[in-house]
């Protein structure tokens, strides 16, 4: 009975266009924000923060970015790890070469660099479709992998090709302790999530979805596929680039190109598929699932005190992981987000379904 919208009338279209039209949702979101911004930093253990929450937050951001391209605009990409790398290394170069470059500025420049590369590799999407495009995006992956290893200036001449950053701060506030790093990443995520939501529910979002659902009809309505697709690539790779910067700066602190290899790209893709294509919320679900699952699977034997050797555990993780992905695709091809929304629909009518 608690969760229903009767008696909540919308006086204006603006009111109707809110992200969360239902009061209960707004309350829930408010509580959630308090939880993640205030409670968690206070009570969460350093391990929980550094090993689970920070990766989760950053990868959610990356998944969000990828979801804009794949989920909303319908352009498959297997190369988004590369855009993370571009973001990370561009940000690193600003940070390392320019004395006193503010962290935020470096990250944004990283994002912009990634945008440029993203648009560049997005151009084929104007001619190539579907699986062909998916494989074509691998070109971006391997090219960037290579560039990060081979071109000395990318790594600021570090002989080993591995780079690292230290003494991060935002407007004088240090970003060192797990809690601080978590909060910083979370702020960025929250901000971008809001912007992304605005985009996908606005005119441009409709253009993306139109291209995804029926590109010919979209063109006839006067939507320019070129513009729609390239903006999708641009926005997507920008967000992913920033996420890459965070991954390097805030999570790893020191990294090598391998941190953004093809496995990362697949990981991101899994996140949005399992979480839900074309759903901001889904990106979070997916990230949570993919980040937590392997850790749980590894930890299980230890917590249960089962003497199982690491090799077997690792292989089992592989198997269960793969099986779960297939399982999800079969039971709910639209991902956890769809499960969530159906649950809400039910709840809305509960206890009187008619």
């Amino acid at each position, binding site marked *: 009975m608690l969760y229903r919208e009767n008696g909540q009338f919308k006086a204006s279209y603006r009111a109707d266009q809110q992200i969360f039209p239902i009061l209960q949702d707004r309350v829930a979101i408010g509580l959630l924000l308090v939880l993640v911004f205030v409670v968690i930093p206070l*009570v969460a253990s350093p391990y929980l923060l550094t090993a689970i929450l920070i990766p989760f937050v950053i990868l959610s951001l990356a998944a969000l970015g990828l979801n804009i391209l794949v989920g909303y605009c319908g352009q498959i990409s297997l190369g988004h790890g590369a855009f993370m790398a571009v973001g990370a290394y561009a940000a690193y170069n600003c940070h390392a070469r320019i004395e006193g470059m503010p962290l935020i500025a470096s990250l944004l420049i990283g994002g912009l660099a990634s945008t440029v590369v993203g648009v560049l590799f997005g151009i084929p999407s104007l001619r190539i479709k579907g699986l062909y495009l998916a494989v074509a995006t691998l070109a971006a992956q391997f090219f960037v992998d290579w560039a990060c290893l081979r071109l000395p200036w990318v790594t600021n001449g570090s002989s080993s090709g591995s780079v690292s950053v*230290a003494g991060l701060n935002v407007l004088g506030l240090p970003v060192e302790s797990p809690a601080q790093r978590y909060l910083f990443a979370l702020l960025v995520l929250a901000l971008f999530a809001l912007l992304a939501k605005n985009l996908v529910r606005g005119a441009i979002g409709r253009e993306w979805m139109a291209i995804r659902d029926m590109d010919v009809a979209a063109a006839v309505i006067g939507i320019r596929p070129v513009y729609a697709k390239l903006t999708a690539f641009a926005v997507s790779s920008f967000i992913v680039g920033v996420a890459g910067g965070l991954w390097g700066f805030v999570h790893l602190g020191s*990294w*090598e190109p391998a941190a953004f290899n093809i496995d990362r790209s697949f990981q991101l893709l899994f996140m949005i598929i399992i979480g839900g294509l074309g759903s901001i919320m889904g990106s979070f679900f997916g990230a949570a699932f993919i980040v937590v699952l392997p*850790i749980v699977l590894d930890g299980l034997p230890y917590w249960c005190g089962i003497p199982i050797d690491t*090799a077997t555990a690792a292989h089992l993780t592989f198997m269960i992981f793969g099986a779960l992905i297939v399982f999800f695709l079969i039971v709910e091809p639209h991902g956890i987000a769809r499960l969530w929304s159906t649950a809400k629909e039910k709840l809305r009518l509960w206890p009187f379904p008619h």
Partner: protein
Amino acid sequence: MSHLKSLTLAAALLAAATGAFAQAKEQFFPLLAYRTGAYAPNGTPWANGKQDYLKMINARDGGVNGVKLTFEECETGYATDKGVECYERLKNRPGVTLFEPQATGITFALTDKVPTDKIPLLTVGYGLAASQDGNVFKWNFPLMGSYWTAADMLIQQIGKKEGGLDKLKGKKIALVYHDSPFGKEPIPLLEERAKMHGFELSKIPVTAPGVEQKSAWLQVRQARPDYVLLWGWGIMNSTALKEAQATGYPREKMYGVWWAGAEPDVKDVGEGAKGYNALNLNNSGTSSKVIQDILKLVHDKSQGTGPRDEVGTVLYTRGVIIQMLGVEAVRRAQERFGKGKVMTGEQVRWGLENLALDQKKLDSLGFTGVMRPISTSCQDHMGSTWARVHTWDGSKWSFTSDWLQADEQIIKPMVKTAADKYAGEKKLTRRTPEDCQS
């Protein structure tokens, strides 16, 4: 807000403390390993050696002065972010001793974290070459050698073969390397040496993990170098040897780093690898007392981690040595901070910094003939740079050189400049002599 934070912090500390109390008398060794993925063939025996040694010490001496040794393994799959996760998971366990990540990439990532967590980082024969400088890298211990010392010794050995380093003038040496921090580390030193002796160094990268090397070896065939230095790990090594055979490059002219000179690298190449040389940090074989003890006290009680016939192989033995160094660091620390106590990371760090394993001590530990003496100091976190070249005769490794040592004159200044550069980037100041006493 702020004191709320400190409150929770205090609570956490308390919890940790009580935890430690509850778990008293247990020195915990977190073991990062990879038993799956591209590098499993080499990672596995290494990890098994580490585990078996701990089991053996517990079985033979009941731990270190009555402090039982516990451990938990965490699978990294050689991936940096997974390694970081393992580190974060295990670093807060009560009585945590030190980390030995088994991977250069993970080492790089952890190097930034250990100073704040006050846990030493043990990287035997790998990691950052510059971290030999204990004045800057307070928490890193690249014991027994780095890629620079390795490269240096290989050049020396080739010099010997040619009959004097001066003979290297005009010679061609190709470096076929794993395209990653691991493979790139030796380049600066080799370039230095190339300048000194006037040999031509050509660098041939192999994209990790190195499954497909055809074009790399076509390049070798094109350049026709006098020697090939093989800087590989995992599947890359055996593949390289196969391609060398396929392109007819003489294996006798190939010299591998000590990570490219173990059984998994040559076993399934067999005859094809005959004559291939590689450095080795340690003797292998089952003759030594420590290996015998492991067989007796662990494997005979069917508590061995891996298959019995793997015991005493090159990487297994290296694992044993690495673990021994860790355990001895604890022992040394106990001598100062109290026998029979559980050592903290900081105390273990002191132990690692003041290792003094002379021949006598090694003999008593059962490592006679397995390795050379090693003693560390505040400045020198490497302790010794001994290594030997062994050659594969188609069925087994046998030593073909005496013990070699890297040339201080060349390494020292390079380490210093590299360390200073690092300190500059990280805005660190060199440690003071007082700090060394602490």
